């Protein structure tokens, strides 16, 4: 046996790599036993494109802008008082809501599957498949076993066996740095990039159970969605509104409070 292990690539991966100009030699993938998946090929292509665009600048990351159409960022404030405390819980809730909303806004092409958690600098990519089918508990677990640290980002990537045209919804925790939001540029392959800001406490007008208005202390975050011409302005508005509804109604629908 040769000491350098020869990785076996499926025909589909080889064709995709050829079409996208990605070299497979030496690549260790996120599939079973390190096999390179179609998602990996698209990710490598994205990073390579970024490096090229940066003219060799220090380190490529998901946050590096892709070449392509101009991008716009829409920002909303969401009351997350009902969401369980903790960065992971918040991210899990946002991912869950965003995936559901994206499916609603784009019934024909959901974001696909698999969560990719990418450490911001030099970290190892970890893929958890089928993000859109995980429960909140499943998402939370996935986030907790994934690399942590400032700037950790989540990509809701294409499904196993996905088509090259499938796109990723990147989710980025900007709260670690204390930012209210970041206008996070999209990477190649992203459908949109969602930044989750630092939770802040606000005195806010709330509607009480009896319908009367009152003043309460609420925990709020900013969600900033960066998108390009793949998504219409109306679809983005619909999606963000759905995310807000879902997050703000969370405690009610599951019948439990934060712990």
């Amino acid at each position: 046996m040769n000491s350098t292990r020869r990785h076996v690539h499926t025909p589909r991966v080889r064709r995709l790599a050829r079409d996208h100009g990605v070299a497979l030699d030496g690549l260790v993938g996120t599939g079973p036993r390190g096999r390179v998946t179609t998602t990996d090929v698209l990710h490598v292509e994205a990073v390579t494109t970024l490096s090229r665009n940066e003219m060799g600048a220090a380190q490529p990351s998901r946050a590096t802008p892709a070449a392509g159409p101009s991008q716009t960022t829409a920002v909303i404030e969401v009351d997350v008082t009902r969401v369980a405390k903790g960065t992971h819980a918040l991210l899990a809730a946002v991912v869950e809501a965003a995936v559901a909303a994206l499916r609603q806004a784009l019934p024909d092409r959901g974001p696909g599957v698999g969560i990719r958690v990418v450490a911001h600098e030099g970290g190892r990519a970890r893929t958890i498949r089928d993000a859109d089918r995980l429960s909140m508990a499943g998402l939370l677990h996935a986030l907790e076993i994934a690399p942590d640290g400032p700037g950790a980002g989540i990509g809701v990537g294409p499904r196993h066996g996905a088509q090259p045209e499938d796109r990723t919804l990147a989710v980025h925790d900007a709260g670690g740095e204390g930012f209210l939001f970041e206008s996070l540029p999209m990477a190649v392959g992203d459908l949109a990039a969602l930044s989750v800001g630092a939770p802040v406490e606000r005195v806010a007008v709330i509607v009480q159970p009896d319908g009367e208005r009152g003043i309460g202390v609420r925990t709020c975050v900013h969600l900033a969605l960066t998108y390009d011409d793949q998504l219409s302005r109306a679809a983005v508005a619909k999606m963000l509104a759905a995310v807000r509804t879902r997050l703000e109604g969370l405690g009610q629908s599951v019948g439990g409070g934060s712990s």
Partner: protein
Amino acid sequence: MAQLSYRDAVARGIAQEMRRDDRVVLVGEDVAGAGGVFKTTVGLLDEFGPHRVIDTPISEQAILGAAMGAAMTGLRPVAEIMFSDFFAVCWDLVVNQIAKTRYMTGGQVTLPLVIKTGNGGGLRFGAQHSQSIENWAMAVPGIKVVTPSTPEDVVGLMAAAIRDDDPVLFCEHKGLYSMKAEVADGEIVDTLGTAKVRRAGRDATILSLGMMMPRALAAAEDLATRGIDAEVIDVRSLIPLDTRTILASVAKTGRLFTVEENPQVLGWGAEIAAIVADEGFWDLDGPVQRITTPHIPLPSADSLEDLVMPSAESVASTVEKALQS
């Protein structure tokens, strides 16, 4: 729309064509007075009379010989071979005569003939009355081979088979005779050589035929609860074969599984696997896997027959394991 059983759908399909075309006749053992040993021809004698619905002696060669002669001389017969296993005793007529006449006469003589037959296992009928023989016939150029899996398809494909100018082997799955489903009112005419996507999915393509279709569908629903979105295709027609639908599905999912009731060696899925390896190779994201009965005669004991035939559970676990390895 009305509920119709698979067995009643057979009679409805034949009756629909007999009303339309008086050249259509039915011959076979017990097809007239008894309404068929599986009750698939009930009512046809009453409606069309003994000149068009004809009981024969217990001789498969006589049935097919008479039907072939009738087809050569202008009728459009439907002949029943009670159990598909019995093709073994009239195979010379099928292979050397019926399948080759059009070719050997330079197209001067066509055989618009349907051979309907009770096919498949699951009913504890033992090794000589349970076989799935589509692949025997598939190997012979000159015969079309169809196997419907729903009552509506029975009516439509029967009509298409009767209207076709070539011999068609029409395999009715015995295990499905009692199955009921909604069937549209009025005339139904389907198209030979077309597969149907029974469930759309993105992660894996599961091909099925006859009684394996509901099992594949159940497996796909089970897989969906575990995050695998499988596409289930009902092949329906082996000759001609709808390769376009199959290849398009594999291009989408990257993975192909076949669920076959026949013994593994040279089952219909082997031919499709070869076609996909040839024409869909660059779409494959893993090996093609065939789920079949082992290469053994079918046992008659309940537990053993259940054990060897593909089940919803064995399909689901095979697909899940394959996608995770």
